[in-house]
C-alpha cells in the first residue's frame, strides 16, 4: 500500500494534462471553445456544460468555497479518469482528460473527503479514440489477461488464509499469509487504480487517517498480520476481518479486468512496482510484523518484469539499448534475490529481520540499478 499518487489509469490523462500545462497544442485550452468550467463550493459542483465533444477535454475548476477541494473525472463505475487534489479556496486549477464518447461523472470533494458532489456529463461524437499499433494492442491485451489471472489465482490462496484465521489456527494462518498476497503485489498499480480497494485490503497502521481508530477502521492483510505475528493470537474481530478481506478482494477480482490499460500505463506501472520496493520493502516497513518483505519484493519485481516482457516487441525497436539494459538489470536483481531463497522450489524467502544492513544496502543498490532505467520505459513505449 502506498500514499495517494497517480494511478495507472490516470497516467495517460496526466500526460495530456502536462501537455496542456506546458503550452503545447490543446484545442480546448485558451481559445475557450472546449474548456469546461467547474464552479466548486462547499456545497455545490456546477459544470458549465454537461455535453461536449469527445477527445481531449480541459476542465477548469475554481474553488469558491472555504475548504480545500479535489476534482475528479470518473467513469460511471467510479474508475478515475483524471484527478486533481489540493485545490485551495479561491484558487483555480485545470485538468485535462482524454475522453472517448460515453457517460462520465464530475466529482468535487470539498474537504477532500467522501464521495463528493457529483454531476453527470456526456462526451459525444467519435473523437478521442486513439489508434494503437498491433504490437501495442497485443501487449495491452496480454497484460489485461495477466492481471485477471493474478486476481483469479489469488482468491483461493486468500481464502485459505481467511479460513485459517476463521478457524483460529495461528500457525496455519501465518503460513498462508505471504502467499495470499503475491498476486496482489504483482499487479498492485492496477489494483490501486480502483481507488477504494487498496485502502481496504493493503493499508498499514500508519496509513490510517487522523481520527480513524485502528481497532475499528483498520481492515485488510496488515491488520491480520499484526494480530498473527505480533499478538500471536486471533480474536473475534480478526475472524470478521477475514471475511471482509475476501469480500473486498472479490470486488477487485470483478473490477480488475475493466481497468484502463495503455502501453504507457503498463510501463509506468512497472516502475511504480519498483518504487514500492524502494520505499516500503527494502526498509522493512511493509511487512513489519511478519518480515515477509522479500516475498512482496519478488512479486513486485515479477509483475514489473511481466509488463516489460510484454512491451519488449515495441521497446526493442524504439530503444534497443534501454531494452538490453533492462534485461540485464532484471536478471541481476533476480539473481540477487535468489540468494535469499533457500529452497528454489518454494516461494519462501529469508525473513527480512535476518537481512543485515550491508545486505539491505546491496538490495537497495540493485533496486536503484533497475528502477532508474525502468523509469525510461514509458517513453520508449510511447514512441
Amino acid at each position: 500500500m502506498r500514499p495517494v499518487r497517480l494511478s495507472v489509469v490516470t497516467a495517460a490523462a496526466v500526460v495530456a494534462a502536462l501537455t496542456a500545462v506546458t503550452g503545447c497544442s490543446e484545442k480546448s485550452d485558451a481559445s475557450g471553445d472546449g474548456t469546461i468550467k467547474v464552479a466548486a463550493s462547499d456545497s455545490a459542483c456546477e459544470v458549465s456544460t454537461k455535453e461536449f465533444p469527445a477527445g481531449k477535454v480541459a476542465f477548469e475548476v475554481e474553488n469558491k468555497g472555504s475548504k480545500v477541494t479535489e476534482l475528479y473525472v470518473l467513469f460511471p463505475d467510479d474508475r478515475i479518469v483524471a484527478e486533481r487534489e489540493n485545490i485551495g479556496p479561491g484558487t483555480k486549477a485545470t485538468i485535462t482528460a482524454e475522453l472517448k464518447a460515453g457517460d462520465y461523472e464530475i466529482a468535487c470533494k470539498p474537504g477532500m473527503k467522501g464521495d463528493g458532489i457529483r454531476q453527470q456529463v456526456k462526451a459525444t461524437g467519435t473523437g478521442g479514440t486513439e489508434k494503437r499499433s498491433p504490437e501495442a494492442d497485443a501487449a495491452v491485451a496480454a497484460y489485461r489477461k495477466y492481471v485477471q489471472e493474478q486476481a483469479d489465482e489469488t482468491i483461493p490462496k486468500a481464502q485459505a488464509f481467511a479460513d485459517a484465521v476463521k478457524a483460529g489456527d495461528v500457525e496455519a494462518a501465518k503460513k498462508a499469509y505471504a502467499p495470499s498476497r503475491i498476486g496482489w503485489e504483482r499487479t498492485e498499480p492496477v489494483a490501486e487504480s480502483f481507488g477504494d480497494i487498496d485502502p481496504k485490503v493493503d493499508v498499514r497502521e500508519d496509513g490510517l487517517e487522523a481520527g480513524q481508530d485502528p481497532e475499528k477502521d483498520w481492515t485488510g492483510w496488515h491488520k491480520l498480520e499484526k494480530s498473527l505475528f505480533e499478538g500471536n493470537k486471533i480474536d473475534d474481530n480478526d475472524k470478521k476481518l477475514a471475511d471482509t478481506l475476501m469480500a473486498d478482494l472479490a470486488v477487485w477480482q470483478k473490477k480488475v479486468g475493466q481497468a484502463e490499460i495503455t502501453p504507457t500505463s503498463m510501463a509506468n506501472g512497472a516502475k511504480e512496482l519498483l518504487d514500492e520496493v524502494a520505499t516500503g520493502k527494502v526498509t522493512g516497513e511493509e511487512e513489519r510484523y511478519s518480515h515477509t518483505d522479500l516475498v512482496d519484493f519478488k512479486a513486485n519485481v515479477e509483475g514489473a518484469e511481466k509488463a516489460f516482457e510484454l512491451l519488449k516487441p515495441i521497446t526493442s525497436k524504439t530503444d534497443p539499448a534501454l531494452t538490453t539494459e533492462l534485461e540485464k538489470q532484471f536478471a541481476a536483481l533476480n539473481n540477487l534475490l535468489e540468494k535469499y531463497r533457500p529452497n528454489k522450489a518454494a516461494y519462501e524467502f529469508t525473513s527480512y529481520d535476518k537481512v543485515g544492513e550491508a545486505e539491505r544496502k546491496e538490495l537497495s543498490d540493485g533496486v536503484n540499478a533497475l528502477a532508474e532505467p525502468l523509469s525510461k520505459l514509458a517513453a520508449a513505449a510511447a514512441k
Partner: protein
Amino acid sequence: MSESVSGQQPAQDEPHGAPEAAPEQTGPVTGAPSRRAVLGWGGAGLALGAAAAGGTAIALNSSPDMVSAASAGAAVPFHGEHQAGIASAVQDRLHFAAFDVKTKDRAELVQLLKDWTEAARLMTAGQPVGEGGYGGLPEAPPDDTGEALGLKASRLTLTIGFGPGLFAKGRFGLEGKRPGALIDLELFPGDNLDAARSGGDLCVQACADDPQVAVHAIRQLARIGFGKTAVRWSQLGFGKTSSTTPDEQTPRNMMGFKDGTRNISGTDKAALDKHVWVGAGDGSDWLAGGSYLVARRIRMNIETWDRTPLGEQEDIFGRDKGEGAPVGKSKERDEPFLKAMKPEAHVRLAHPDSNDGATILRRGYSFTDGTDGLGRLDAGLFFLAYQRDVRTGFVPIQRKLAKSDVLNEYIQHVGSAVFAVPPGVRDKDDWWGRTLFA
C-alpha cells in the same frame, strides 16, 4: 588556528589576510550565464556564454567596489592541466560522495566516466545535464532533476578520485597501474573508523558557493551511475575551514579557531609542484599532473571542548583564539616560533619543521549532521588533504598527531578514505581517467 586538525603549515610566508569581501578567485573566471538563460538557447546559449566571458570577466585583485567572483556566481573552467577543486579558490560549500563500482565490465566503467565527464562539463558551466529539467517527453522523467535551474554556476568544481579497490587484481586489469603512493592507510592510534563512512572505489568532490548547486551535481552523477556505481557514503560540508587564497581572512573551524592560515596558496606554482602535483617522474605516468587525496571524517567532542578554559584551548592549538596568532606573536600570519608552544600543542606537532618538511594542501569543511542519539552535536571537520605522495604527506603528520596531539582528547577520526586524483580533463574530447584506462 592556522592548522587543520590533522594538517600542518607550509613553510612559505604569506601576507596578512584581506577583508572577507575581497575577491577569492585565483584562476581565470568566466561570467557564467544562468542555467535558465541557457535553456532554450541550445548551442546559441553556449556561444553567448563564451562571448560573455570576455565582456564580463571578473578582474582579479580588483578594487573593493568590483563584484566578487563568488557573488557573481561565476564558472570555474572545467578543462585544464590539473583538475579544478584542488588548487582553485576554496568555495563555501561541499558535497562529497564516495562510490562503489558495481559493474564488472571495464568498457561499461569507461563509458560511465565519459558520461560523468560530460555531465560535469555541463554542470560546472551552470547548465543542466542531458536534455534538461523540463520540456522533454511527458511520459518520462526529465534528464536533469531541476533543483539547480535558474541558479548560477556558483564556482562549482567537480573533482574525481580513484580508490585502491579499483586497482584490485582481476577487476579491471589495472593492478599494474596502482601507484606506490596510493597506499592503504594504516590504522592510526585512536581511530574509530566506521566502514560505512570509509573507503570507496571512486569519489567525487563537489565544491560550490551554493549548497544546492553542489548537492545537485552529486545527485545527477549518482543517478547517471545507478547500475554501474552505488553511493557508498557521502558528506555535506557547510563551511570551509581552510583556504587557498592567502589574501582572504582565514575561516574558523567548529572549535572556533582559525584554520588553514598557512595553507598552500593556489597561485604558488612552486609549492604546488613540490608538494601537491604528481610529477612525470614519480613512477605513475598516468597520474602526472594529478594528486592524492586523503579524506577523514573527524568528529569533535564539541560539548567538552566548549567547557574547556580559554587558556587551555589556546595552549592546545598553540595559537590565540581572537587573532589566531601563534604563541608569542601578534598576528595570525606571523611565522610561528614552535619552541614557545607546549611540546604537544597541535600546531607545533603538525608543522613541517616537526615532520621533515611534510606539507599538504588542505581543503577541509566543517560538518554538522544533526545530533547523535545522546543529544550531542554530531559535528566536526571533514578533512580533505591533497598531496604529491601520501607516504610523505599525510602519513607522517598523522602518525605524529595521533601519538601525542593534546587535541586528541576532543576529536576522533571516524571515517577514512584515500584516492588517486587523475590529472585534469584537457579539452572537450578528453574524459576523467583517460590516462588510466585508454
